[in-house]
């Protein structure tokens, strides 16, 4: 059966990107029409995408390798990503109806919102590597206009242009990667490329070329997905309306990760690329994670959180855990879109967790719980995994990521142990088992949909696993030390540096254009 719905989606996405051609004054004059047509198109796109996903998961669409696949490459990966992007897009459009009401440039705003959603969707759907990269560039340029929605704000201009610079760096790497790919394979059709790669490199030279291509694409993705040290633009982009942040953090910034997952058959053949992804990802997790916990404004916390999460996604790709990365991409997008759109409720939420707490002295129970909790978490998680029939050791990066998950759940349990409340500790233990179950369920669903398009890899280099686990143990130690007030002398400077995002923003600013012009 020809993939009619994916083709329709591509048409709708194309129609949205045509917004580029319309003059802004006309759009702003006929605000209602612009708003209605963009929202209508995005809604149709979502309906088509959801329908296509349903059909795909019931096995209607076989993976194609013909010429049609050069136009629309529809598989589990693109099915999931398209549904996600169009859903977030629809939510953002609905939100902006009222949120941007009365803005004299609302028409223009919707045009660029639509164009961004359309371009991302095209990037997701296309079966041609060059079109994919071109669509990503179009996405970035459309988003640029949204970042400049308040062009009079100096902060908005600075953020938009630093993002512009980082993205163009990424574009250079990506286009380089596309060029070398064409020279090597003589085609840019994904289906043909993947078929050619599946056999593995024929010669050491071919392996080197694959390494070059993989690394170029990885570097491009690193630049596009706000990885350290090119992340500093992301926390600066709060000068743009909230729904744009939602769209950016839930849709656009994932483009690098999506590219890695999409091209994973190729990336998997380039060990250097995998190492790069793991190292940059790990560094980004550390910088983003520590910066995140010190920020004092809600949106900046969320922005640094995205940086860290993007790092984690890249790290998962680097470990070869592409299914896990795809789950992360989806889950993070949904969470972050909600968190941004709901960021005005932060006071209500604070009210909901304000409670008079008596000073607690750690009880015997608390001490015991502190030591035994993490053990329980590990045992429980492994038990749940085994009973669900998932062999962690068979999945690339499985053990490493399971260890990271257990560390995280342990952190939650330790927090409950500190409260010395038995009920709370019991709830935390049960909760961590439940969360472990959720994780496995999510992972298995994504893996079931997308595994056919993702490469099977051997385990990552041991030193990378050790590095990753070490990183998370380090983060946990810092958290526990900070929570218990240990090591003040060491932690105070770390706090200040983290608050400043480790000065990356300042260094970029100094490098690009000093304040003293």
């Amino acid at each position, binding site marked *: 059966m020809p993939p009619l719905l994916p083709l329709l989606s591509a048409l709708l996405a194309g129609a949205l990107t045509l917004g580029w051609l319309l003059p802004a004054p006309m759009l702003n004059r006929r605000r209602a029409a612009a708003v209605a047509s963009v929202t209508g198109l995005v809604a149709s796109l979502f309906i088509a995408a959801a329908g296509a996903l349903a059909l795909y998961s019931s096995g209607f669409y076989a993976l194609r390798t013909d010429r049609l696949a050069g136009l629309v490459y529809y598989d589990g990966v693109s099915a999931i990503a398209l549904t996600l992007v169009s859903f977030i897009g629809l939510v953002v459009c609905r*939100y902006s109806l009222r949120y941007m009401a009365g803005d004299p440039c609302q028409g223009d705003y919707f045009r660029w919102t639509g164009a961004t959603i359309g371009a991302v969707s095209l990037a997701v759907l296309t079966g041609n590597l060059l079109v994919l990269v071109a669509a990503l560039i179009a996405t970035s340029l459309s988003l640029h206009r949204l970042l400049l929605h308040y062009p009079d704000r100096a902060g908005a201009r600075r953020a938009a242009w630093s993002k512009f610079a980082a993205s163009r760096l990424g574009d250079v790497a990506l286009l380089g990667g596309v060029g070398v790919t064409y020279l090597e394979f003589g085609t840019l059709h994904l289906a043909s490329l993947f078929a050619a790669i599946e056999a593995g490199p024929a010669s050491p030279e071919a392996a080197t070329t694959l390494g070059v291509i993989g690394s170029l694409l990885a570097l491009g993705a690193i630049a596009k997905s706000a990885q350290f040290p090119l992340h500093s633009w992301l926390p600066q982009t709060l000068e743009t309306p909230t729904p744009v942040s939602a769209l950016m953090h839930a849709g656009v910034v994932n483009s690098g990760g999506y590219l890695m997952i999409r091209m994973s058959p190729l990336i998997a053949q380039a060990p250097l690329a995998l190492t790069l992804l793991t190292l940059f990802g790990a560094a980004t997790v550390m910088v983003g994670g520590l910066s995140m916990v010190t920020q004092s404004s809600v949106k900046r916390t969320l922005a640094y959180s995205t940086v860290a999460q993007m790092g984690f996604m890249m790290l998962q790709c680097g470990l070869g855990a592409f299914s896990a990365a795809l789950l992360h991409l989806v889950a993070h997008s949904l969470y972050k879109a909600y968190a941004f759109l709901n960021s005005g409720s932060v006071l209500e939420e604070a009210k909901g967790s304000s409670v008079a707490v008596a000073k607690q002295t750690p009880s015997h129970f608390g001490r015991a719980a502190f030591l035994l909790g993490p053990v329980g978490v590990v045992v429980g998680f492994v038990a749940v995994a085994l009973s669900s029939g998932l062999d962690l050791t068979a999945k690339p990066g499985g053990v490493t990521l399971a260890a990271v998950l257990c560390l995280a759940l342990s952190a939650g349990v330790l927090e409950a142990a500190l409260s010395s409340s038995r009920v709370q500790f019991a709830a935390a233990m049960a909760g961590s088992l439940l969360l472990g179950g959720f994780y496995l369920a999510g992972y298995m669903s994504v893996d079931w949909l997308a595994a056919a398009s993702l490469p099977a890899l051997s385990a990552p280099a041991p030193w990378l696993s050790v590095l990753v686990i070490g990183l998370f143990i380090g983060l946990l130690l810092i958290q526990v030390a900070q929570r218990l007030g240990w090591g003040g002398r060491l932690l105070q400077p770390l706090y200040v540096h983290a608050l400043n995002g480790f000065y990356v923003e300042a260094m970029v600013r100094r490098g690009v254009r000093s304040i003293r012009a």
Partner: protein
Amino acid sequence: MPQPSTATSVATPPASINPPSFSKRASDSIRVHEALDSVCQRVAPVWPLADYVAVNPYLGFSKDGFFATSQRFREFSDCRMLMPLDYYRQCFGAGEFDSTHVDLAIDELVESRVPGAEYLTGHDLLSVLRSSGDDFGSAVGRSAVPSTRSISSVFDQRHESDWTTFIHDEIGKHCAAYYDEGQSLWANPWKGESLYAAWRAAMRHDRTASILGLSGLGGLVSDLPGRPEDAVVELMRSAGVPADRHDSYLLCLAYEQPGWAAWAQYRSKWLQDGQSKAGDGTGNDLVALLAMRMAYDVAVARSFGFEPEWPPADSEEALPPGVVDANSDVTLYALHRANEIGYRDKLLSALGASLTASSHPMRSQKLAQMVFCIDVRSERIRRQLESVDDRITTLGFAGFFGLPISVIAPGEPRATNQLPVLVAPRIAVKEEVRDANESARAHVVSQRTLVRRMRKSWKAFQRSAVSAFAFVETTGPFFGLKLAARSLGYGATSGGSRYDGVSKAERDRLGPSLTSLRANGLDVEAQADLAVSILRGMGLTADFAQLVVFCGHGCQTENNPLKAGLDCGACGGHSGEPNARLAAQLMNDPEVRRGLAERGIKIPQDTWFLAALHNTTTDEIAFFDEDLVPASHAQAIDELKTTTQRAGVQTRQERRRVMDSNTDSGMNRRARDWSEVRPEWGLTGNAAFVVGPRSFTESADLQGRVFLHTYDHRIDPEGQVLEAILTAPMVVASWINLQYFASTVDQRHFGSGAKTIHNVVGGFGVFAGNGGDLKTGLPWESIHDGESYRHDPVRLQVVVAAPRETIGEILQRHTSVRDLITNGWIHLVACDEESFYRLTSNAMWEPVPTTARPAPSEVAASA
């Protein structure tokens, strides 16, 4: 007293190249301290978002005239106090005022000795109004650049650099981190110290300035003295600010970042050790903020070898007669005043007509007396209620119903102040489940504690650097469902935690407990005294209806950090529900009623006091504690509910025009929609405060622009009630009015800008975008609908129906209130013997000139 710093940093004495003589130093220091004191008197505070109340940002200038203040601002900042010319042209074009008002305005300006006013003529101003564009250039006016500026901004202008913005971002960063009340999981390690000490400690490690090329800041900061006052003295010397500019320079720095200055002021003067103060706290955070700002200024000067000059202040050149400068302040001020007089005229003629119409039926049989807050939003619903059922009369009284309380919810760490911020709370009232036994109440507390602790751990799990990834991957898919629900208007989160730990059956009974009064030392006698003062204050001492309703108000809005600004200002930016419920319980208490009878207020047996809440977003009215109502009143209550529903429908219909809504359901949608930036218009449009009997306002459609306070001077011969009204509610109304005024005329300094980029900081304030200054005041969306201004910035027009003599005596006793009027922050008109008199800037009574408006006496004659 300045608090000694707890900093343990290296406090080496600063190396001074030419140590001035001791006496010179001492006199310098005294002068700087004087300037500091004066600046600390000037800056108005801002409240945290959760308790947000409107504050008059010109509070510290009210001893000076309005126009003089606008001129003073020009010396050190680009703050504006008037609208641009185009605005007044539009008002004139729309018929808001006419040539007679212009003439009257000029006369008033001359009377209050506004410099340059004597050269204005009505003819010239009309030609300014009727022309368009820049026919009248501002070539003659003085330059827009203030004569006293920060060193960094002078440097920036000269070198096209951006240090001032950088400095504001840095100060914003430090203040946000220091004052953060729980946004960051990893809190500032120096929170326990003073702002100044915390900043210095952080600056030992902070490399931002040096990376960006501002060298020497770290050394400069570590060499500063341990007390911020001393630091200011020393930095003032280093900066080379001339002695006669100390004051202006400090004001300049404070008003460069009016938000943080206001917050520091709040933390110093209105809060102490977690207790609210009435402006008399002893902190020195503002001094610390100024010291911090000065350090950056001095660092810029030193780092770049820049020596700032201090040019003499230029004064506006007096124009020769016959030449009019369309954009000069005095021209704009005259037009501004003309616009205000235009409104006064309309208001007074509406009141005059109402006063003499006396066509309203005698309300013989009374169903209910409903007491509403003076809030302008009560005006519409009161009018509609009375029109639906003529057995209902309404009254206006400050919405905290005279109860100086703070309310502590079960298991919560902090009490909520439910009274105007000008008053310190006297009674701590517990919220608890009525008619529940001790163990049931303890159960509520323990359940709530558990639920909230778990939420807290869950939040920590969500946000910590170790577990944030796991949180996202395990729960992310559920957020997809939440996104869908919220987009469709389901799953509202606002107010969700109020009933934590309270079972469904108990919810209606969760409210303020009357027994708390006794626990606070108020015995029956004291309670009766309190009840008397409340009833006297609202003029309700006889002729009680079967039902007396205390109707507080609150808004309903989702995902809106500025919610408190739409709640009841008289209740400290909260819903008026607890006050209404407590007041009703107090009045229903048999012992209190006995005490009231002893004090001369006889409440009939069959009068029942009922508490209600007016939802100002949807205009629905909800009633409380209905289970307590005697069966004999059931029918009356049913009738009242039918009436309030119908009145609600009519009020919504009336509001459709201003809400751009075609349907009733539009209002309900706004209340639940998480993407709504204009749930309601709040107090936008507020313009007047009318003190008088309801007959004075009854038949006038005041369009939701007027605060209404019930008052009858015939039962207040001594003027005690009026004294309370003029010194408290009127001042609060003026704060609100000037807050809206300032946010409209100078959105950049005193407004909070576009809501779309608001970013809640530290749980107490908002940033616009990334950071920088704390934003205060109304957002753009609250005063403008995208096409035009919804708030007309006019100063509060107070109309008091009372003898001039009584008013005059009260003002003589309260000079600060009199200053507000004679200095032009409030306009006061008395309605005495059926004529209107205005209080001039010389504190004289003058008949209000009649223009198009018939005088009340004329209306009476013709009727």
